[in-house]
């Protein structure tokens, strides 16, 4: 168990160094504003991917509505900062709570559904959220919400992302997280081992939705304008692709997936006509040759080449 704490400290140390380097690049204006924005987007996408992974990868519940929760967080956030001039932190907290409550309310009835049915129901709910927002004039309707203060800085994104990663890593490696894993593996057996499967499915769903809400607030405050069209089910597909590409059930994988997907689309931005075609082919080929994703169930802490850095207390 001491090893676990030690690994955490190594990780935090590594993260602080990484932050210092990237912040240095930004402060020194070595990164163009295009790449600076992409750096923010990567961080936000990592939060989205890792929180979706909690639902899809670890708990085995097929959700396709993640962008809907992101939208709720984004809109709650911008209303609070733009119309009520509340501090950013309050907006972040409110975004998390609003998306979390909605996730909880939606989760209770829908999580009885299994597999494809749940997937399509969550997709539908995500779309309903978007269409409802589109019809609220107070937040600008289909035209979008304008005049958002630019609160999102790299530091906010980085440290919230770090918080999300540790939160979910710790959750997965706990009694509650094991209950979620058991549900993924075999729901009937999980129930027979004393796991209240409904409760933990909803817990995973609510936590996932909350983080999506936070990511939404961060996302919205990176731009001057947001519109409901930023949160279509195509976006939900994108997050799913990040998770699957990285490896369902691997936090390292979600980070890598978010990174790869974001940078592929950024790097191909100059060839817009080919971008999506290449992306589509990459996706299909990935499923042919490495369906478990880049990392499968592996974490960086368990990988052989890193054994020298990370102590194998292994069992946590």
């Amino acid at each position, binding site marked *: *168990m001491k090893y676990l704490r030690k690994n955490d400290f190594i990780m935090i140390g590594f993260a602080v160094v990484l932050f210092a380097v990237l912040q240095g690049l930004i402060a020194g204006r070595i990164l163009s504003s295009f790449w600076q924005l992409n750096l923010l987007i990567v961080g936000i996408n990592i939060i989205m991917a890792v929180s979706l992974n909690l639902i899809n990868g670890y708990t085995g519940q097929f959700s396709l509505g993640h962008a809907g929760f992101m939208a709720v967080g984004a809109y709650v956030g911008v209303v609070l900062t733009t119309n009520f001039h509340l501090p950013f932190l309050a907006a972040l907290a409110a975004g998390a709570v609003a998306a979390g409550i909605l996730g909880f309310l939606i989760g209770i009835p829908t999580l009885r559904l299994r597999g494809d049915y749940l997937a399509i129901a969550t997709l539908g709910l995500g779309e309903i959220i978007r269409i409802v927002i589109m019809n609220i004039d107070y937040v600008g309707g289909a035209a979008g919400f304008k005049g958002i203060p630019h609160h999102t800085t790299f530091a906010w994104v980085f440290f919230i992302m770090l918080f999300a990663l540790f939160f979910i890593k710790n959750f997965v490696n706990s009694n509650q997280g094991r209950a979620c894993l058991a549900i993924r593996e075999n729901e009937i057996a999980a129930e027979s081992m004393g796991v209240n499967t409904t409760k933990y499915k909803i817990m995973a769903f609510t936590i996932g939705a909350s983080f999506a809400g936070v990511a939404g607030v961060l996302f919205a405050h990176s731009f001057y304008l947001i519109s409901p069209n930023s949160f279509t089910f195509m976006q939900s597909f994108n997050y799913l692709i990040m998770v699957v590409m990285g490896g369902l059930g691997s936090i390292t994988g979600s980070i890598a997936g978010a990174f790869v997907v974001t940078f592929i689309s950024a790097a191909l931005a100059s060839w817009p006509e080919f971008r999506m075609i290449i992306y589509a082919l990459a996706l299909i080929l990935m499923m042919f040759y490495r369906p478990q994703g880049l990392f499968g169930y592996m974490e960086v802490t368990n990988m052989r080449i890193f054994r020298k850095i990370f102590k194998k207390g292994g069992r946590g």
Partner: protein
Amino acid sequence: MAKELLKATDVSEVFGGLKAVSDFNFHIDKGELVGLIGPNGAGKTTAFNLITGVYQPTTGEIHFDGKSIVGLKPYQITQRGIARTFQNIRLFSELTVLENVKIAFHFHVKYGLLESVFRMGRYFSEEEKIEEEALKLLKIFHLEDKADELAKNLPYGAQRRLEIARALAAKPKLLLLDEPAAGMNPQETKELMEMISWIRKEFGLTILLIEHDMSLVMGICERIYVLEYGMIIAQGTPDVIKNDPEVIRAYLGGEA
């Protein structure tokens, strides 16, 4: 204080007009090792599913430890003290052997969500405790050196043993074993039966055992119920059962 740990009264289960179990009356006393036998399709597993809450009885009552458990969810019944294994093995196959057992401690782990995600309070002490207990259980079932292997990679016999180890981790008063020796060779079966007798004493368990193979049940059970077409056709000690004409007819298909 009733000596009866589990009691089923007039339980029946109807699936779409088909009676899977009818007029099911039986009881298990504290500390007993009872066998439930019968030909394939007699309703043995249905009886298990009724006791563990997977199915709800169409009529009748089931009492555990003096309280009705009808209408409870399977996890609530497990928390009251009934754990089971599955005939068609249901391990958490992509998880390690150790994790499989740890999951079954679920209800007994005493720390909350905040303690989990912020690694505070009882998190470390509780985790250490269940790891220790889980390894102890694995040792009993000769699985300790496989603790870090994925459950799906275990050989068949070891998977069956892991199912029992996992059920014990839920700390039950009553253990339900659904054909634990299915698919095992005679040597493995013999060892398993000895193991069952041993854990029963060690953990002070009451056990209900489903078996297809008569000879095996005869060896260790004190009392046996025989089920055919969803009805109990005989009950008693192994000697009584062995000589019961109804049982002989049911099993051999001959005239009584």
